[in-house]
């Protein structure tokens, strides 16, 4: 990669620009962490409220580096057979059935149980070889010839034991499969872990990662993001919209509207050919921003005031 050998500040600028090109507006903080992760060969643990673009960051990185994205979605009960590798039990069983007769032929001249066993041992562990190994995302990422971006999404949803499985891959980029041995990464993948903080991650995992916290963007950055994502929106409406959302975040809500909701709302307004925010329109489309009935009810009375404020932002 060319950007890496440059002077750090220049390299970080280049990352920032590159991301912008692919429509991901990031600040220097984020670009720094991408740079560091490349230089130090460290995974990045991305935290922040839902909808601020944690997953997008991984996608943008894969686009920027021109690498494939391998994604592992975590959930409660996810275990190594679904994340690391699994034996193709069905295939193994099927092959034994098919090869039953062949085995009979092979063992024909063997006398007695001991001799048969002896003979079988000579064939080695055919059934526990790579052919029967189902590579799941983590193993795929390691076996890939090209560099890939590995996204381990919502790691906080997984169980504690899964975190422990990850430690080996995160620190040494290798996995140990008991039956085969250690699989080392051919090219070190760029690893992202995202977390919504629904549970505190273990210290061991955190120690192995860079920690990046993405907060809600300030209004300037949010305007840039909307401009990049919904370029058709007029500047006036964009300012009003961002100002409205920023005000909304200061309210007491169960779930604050995130960037992704702002983008959705911007698209909605575009579809409705809106020229300017008005109370009626905001009330009708509020469900794009707020995802709880309680929140919508609570904010309803505030809407005229917020809209008024937002319109001021334009001037």
């Amino acid at each position, binding site marked *: 990669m060319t950007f890496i050998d440059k002077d750090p*500040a220049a390299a970080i600028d280049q990352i920032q620009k590159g991301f912008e090109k692919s429509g991901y507006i990031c600040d220097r903080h984020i670009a720094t962490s991408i740079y560091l992760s490349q*230089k130090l060969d460290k995974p990045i643990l991305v935290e922040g409220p839902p909808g601020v673009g944690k997953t997008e960051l991984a996608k943008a990185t894969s686009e920027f580096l021109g690498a494939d994205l391998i994604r592992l979605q975590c959930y409660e009960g996810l275990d190594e057979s679904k994340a690391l590798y699994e034996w193709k039990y069905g295939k193994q069983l099927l092959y034994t059935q098919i090869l039953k007769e062949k085995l009979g032929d092979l063992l024909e001249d063997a006398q007695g149980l001991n001799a048969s066993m002896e003979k079988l041992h000579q064939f080695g562990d055919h059934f526990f070889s790579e052919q029967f190994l189902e590579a799941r995302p983590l193993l795929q990422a390691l076996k890939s010839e090209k560099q890939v971006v590995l996204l381990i999404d919502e790691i906080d949803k997984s169980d504690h034991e899964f975190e422990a499985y990850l430690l080996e891959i995160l620190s040494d980029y290798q996995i140990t499969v008991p039956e085969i041995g250690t699989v080392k990464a051919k090219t070190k993948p760029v690893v992202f872990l995202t977390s919504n903080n629904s549970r505190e991650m273990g210290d061991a995992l955190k120690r192995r990662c*860079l920690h990046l*916290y993405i907060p809600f963007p300030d209004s300037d950055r949010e305007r840039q993001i909307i401009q990049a994502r919904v370029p058709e929106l007029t500047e006036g409406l964009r300012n009003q919209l961002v100002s409205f959302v920023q005000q909304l975040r200061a309210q007491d809500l169960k779930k604050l509207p995130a960037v992704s909701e702002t983008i959705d709302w911007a698209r909605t307004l575009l579809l409705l050919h809106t020229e300017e925010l008005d109370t009626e329109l905001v009330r009708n489309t509020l469900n794009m921003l707020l995802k709880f009935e309680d929140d919508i009810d609570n904010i309803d009375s505030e809407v005229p005031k917020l809209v008024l404020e937002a319109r001021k932002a334009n001037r």
Partner: protein
Amino acid sequence: MDRPLAEFVDMLRYADVPVSIGEVLDAGRTIELLGYEDRGLLKAALSQVMAKTMDEMESFDKCFDEFFTSDVNLDLQENNPGQLSEDEEETDGSSPPPSSLDNLQDQDARQESGSGDGEGGGGGSQEGSPAEQSGQGGADGEAQSLLEMLEQGDRTGLTLAMNAAADSANLSNIVLMTQRGLFSRRIMEEMGLNEVTQEINQRRRNGNEDGANDLSGRLDILFDAVRDMVERQLALTADGKSTQFRQDVLKKVKLSNVETRDFRLMREMVRRMAKRLTDMNSRVKKVKNRGHLDIRKTMRRNVAYDGILFETHWKQKEKDRPKVLAVCDVSGSVASVARFLLLFLYSMNEVLPKVRSFAFSGTLGEITDMFDRYGPEEAVPMAIEKFGGRSTDYGRAMEDFKDLVFDEIDNRTTVIILGDGRSNGSDPRSDILKEIKTRAKRVIWLNPERKSVWGTGDSEMPRITPYCTKAEVCNSLVKLELVIRDLLKTSS
């Protein structure tokens, strides 16, 4: 590893940011990559390498700013003596131009004699103890240079000497406010204070008032710098150590005696205890959760494939999470304990996802919604405001509780009741409690009063205890932790 980084790491550790050795190595590489020039960039980079939670990030920000700006402060302080001495020299130079040179030469001459005397004095005390000997010896070597450095306004030299002296005085061990004077004195002595005071006295004796004042002025500036350094160090270390001390005390203190200013710390402790319990218990679940190949089911399922084992089936056990109903008396005396019980229960929502809570003093009402909406820290005072303040009526509360949730109590439910059992003379309706007990998995009664006063006055504990699986005293964080640990152990 370079020294500033090591010091910075020390500072972080005192500020409750646990930086591991691995992380220090990473930080070292990061600094190597980025250098110290671009502070903003360095801060962004180091914060990602060293701070791993939001709380840590906050402390990190504070430490970083403090650490790197304090460096600048030090520069200023170094500048001060320099500037001052220059000023003085200028004024010196302006008032009597011809004599100034003589003066300086005089000073030089006297300085030599002074230092000679100093060595003599040092030699005299060398006959004392061996420890003193080495100290004096070191001081001797530096005293000469301290005098010179003061005279010449050698800032770098002074700072270096200051740091070296701070090291040998074990400044990093400072814990208490009252040690400030002691440590500054010790550092000054280490740097060779004695020589300089002797020199000043000598100049006074020889009638060289100007020279003496000049030197003592410079010495004062140095003293200020040292005092500043000591105070900075105190701010760094004492915070961490004294917090630890306070925490140990708070764990055992009666919950009703906790003062308002300690609430924040207590909450933090509760959260940490809860996290530990959570971690322990999710590890226990692991064993139960593991699936084995279920041969019987696999066979049965594969009958369709002509007995060829094709599709596998795994044994899996379901996790059993305890349902907890917490009923809290929020009248004056018990409210503070209720606060922490609820805080504890809600901090554990990972292993105890199904907690419903109720508060009562006169009437009883559910407060689960408040917790969901505002989080435990705000919800507890709100609940106390809403339901507290009336005289306790256990009978009434029991009836309300029965009306509200009796149908939902099943054999997996644990009912925790927190109250002092003082019903102000009314019937505590232990018959309802009996009914609850037969339905629920268990009923735990927590009483903040000590056992010896149970049953005295209007306390109904003797009538209540028979219908509880367990009735316990619970008045400190340690006890509270035990109760909840027990709750989790028997539930899994």
